[in-house]
């Protein structure tokens, strides 16, 4: 088990009902963690439409995780 901090933005924040949480998981990477959270919270976006960030920087899928990492799932962006 590892302990991770997850931050949520935009549509994921609304679907989760909170902006961040600390959780324990056996997921080895961010892709597996997202599937775990999607099943639990009903996120509508498939992982293929997201990017991952680990510890404040973009991380290529599947984005391996270690204990203490900070994870953000990035929905399709829409600035401008």
């Amino acid at each position, binding site marked *: 088990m590892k302990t991770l901090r997850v*931050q949520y*933005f*935009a*549509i994921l*924040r*609304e679907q989760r009902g909170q902006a961040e949480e600390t959780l324990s998981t056996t997921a080895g990477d961010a892709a597996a963690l997202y599937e775990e959270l999607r099943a639990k919270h009903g996120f*509508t*976006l*498939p992982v*293929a*439409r997201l990017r991952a*960030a680990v510890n*404040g*920087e*973009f991380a290529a899928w599947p984005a391996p995780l270690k204990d203490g990492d900070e994870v*953000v799932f*990035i*929905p*399709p*962006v*829409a*600035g*401008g």
Partner: protein
Amino acid sequence: MSFRIAASPLDPAALKASLADAHAGACVTFEGWVRDHNDGRPVQALDYEAYGALAEKEGARIVAETLAKFPVTRVVCVHRTGSLKIGDLAVWIGVASAHRGAAFDACRYLIDEVKARVPIWKKEHYADGATEWINCATRGEFSDR
């Protein structure tokens, strides 16, 4: 040379003044405004949300790329977060360069890359009370849109 996220209204005159440079013979600015419609639906307001730390990091990379690709002297880009009304200024970009061609090209490059890459999200509020996070619609489990 800067990119930043701003939670309060932008001041175009002050931003433009920050581009001043004796070597510059051209200044191109772009303003992104909140408009009252999108995809045929009347829009009443927008919320912008950003992952601030990574947005400013990615924005700084885009500015650095712009400086490497185009012979420009100064570049400034600021993007709003928070609740905006119709007509509000959502993004301001300014580029100064010795000659106009590079300033136009660099300005276009900046806005296109910012829209495609920086972790900023837009929620539209429609006249009928509905809301939508732009680019985040899903039709079903097996759709990729």
